């Protein structure tokens, strides 16, 4: 378990954006693994199996949560200025923005930024960049249109880029402002 717990926890934490929920789901993943212990013991793909189960259980959890709060989510969505229009970037992101930030700081910034993204942007973004699913697969998994997946991921990227530029040293920021 110790060999895989960080991988499972990272998957659930990034998808759910909440430590307590991520721990609960990671626990369920390992309990499921113990239920299938005989099959998995000899399997060479145990890491892949755990990652798939972690992803599926996290998505199921989010779906249940969304159903429970559907009325209020709908109220909130109608209040948001969240149209399907393409997002706008009111600044340029220099290619060197990542180089300007120390590695540890950069990791912390990206992790924090991911957690701050709204669920409908974070989940497809994580599935695309971390789980390496295609846009089409993500749309099928989340039961939304392909266009919405693309827009949400793009919005998520724009938000992340904005936070990275903010975390960058001032000379990189001024470069972004000038260009």
């Amino acid at each position, binding site marked *: *378990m*110790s060999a895989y*717990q*960080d*991988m*499972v*926890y*990272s998957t659930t*934490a*990034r998808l759910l*954006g*909440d*430590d307590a929920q991520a*721990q609960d789901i*990671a*626990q369920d993943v*390992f*309990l499921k693994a*113990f*239920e299938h212990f005989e099959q998995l013991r000899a399997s060479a793909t145990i890491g892949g199996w755990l990652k798939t189960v972690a992803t599926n259980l996290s998505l199921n959890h989010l779906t249940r949560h969304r159903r429970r*709060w559907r009325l*209020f*989510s709908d*109220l*909130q969505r109608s*209040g948001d200025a969240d149209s399907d229009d*393409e*997002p*706008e*970037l*009111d600044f340029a*992101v220099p*290619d060197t*923005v*990542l180089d300007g930030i120390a*590695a540890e700081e*950069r*990791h912390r910034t*990206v*992790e924090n930024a991911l957690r*701050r993204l*709204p*669920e409908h942007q974070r989940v497809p*973004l994580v599935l695309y*960049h*971390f789980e390496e699913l295609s846009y089409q697969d993500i749309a099928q998994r989340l039961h939304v249109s392909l266009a919405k997946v693309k827009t949400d991921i*793009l919005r998520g*990227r*724009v938000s*992340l*880029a904005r936070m*990275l530029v903010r975390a960058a040293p001032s000379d990189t920021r001024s470069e972004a402002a000038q260009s």
Partner: protein
Amino acid sequence: MTLSPQEQARLERLIGTACRELPLLEAPQSLAARVTAQLQRRAAQPAWRAPFSQWSKGLRITFLPVALIVMGVTLSMSAGPGAQRLTTLALAPLSRALARLESTGALIALLATLCRHLGISLLQDIPTFWLYGCVAGLLALYALLAGISATAFRTLYGTR
């Protein structure tokens, strides 16, 4: 500035790089302990409380014929000569309960009549305007509750 396809591709590369280089998050130390505790709790439970899929193979194989035999015996007894005696035995507590229910039902009917008379006299005495006011008040309270719940949701879960 709306993003051109080239800008979008550049942004995808940039965020892809930032995400790929992220190290795995360190799982809390309590995770392993929680899993172990949960497994011990499960192990302490009697076998029959576990889901059928987790029963041992022998138990699963034994269970099905035993269940079929029990069903067969029950059905044959209910159709055979012992059926009437069984029915009497089984229905005795039911008829006692029904008798008790009848007396309880009479008491409930009496209470309902009293409430109805009380309700009718109250309705006749209360001005209609007050009744409409009460209904409007209840609707307003319901709307307020929905508003408070929506605000609580937006505050607590809005950013998730």
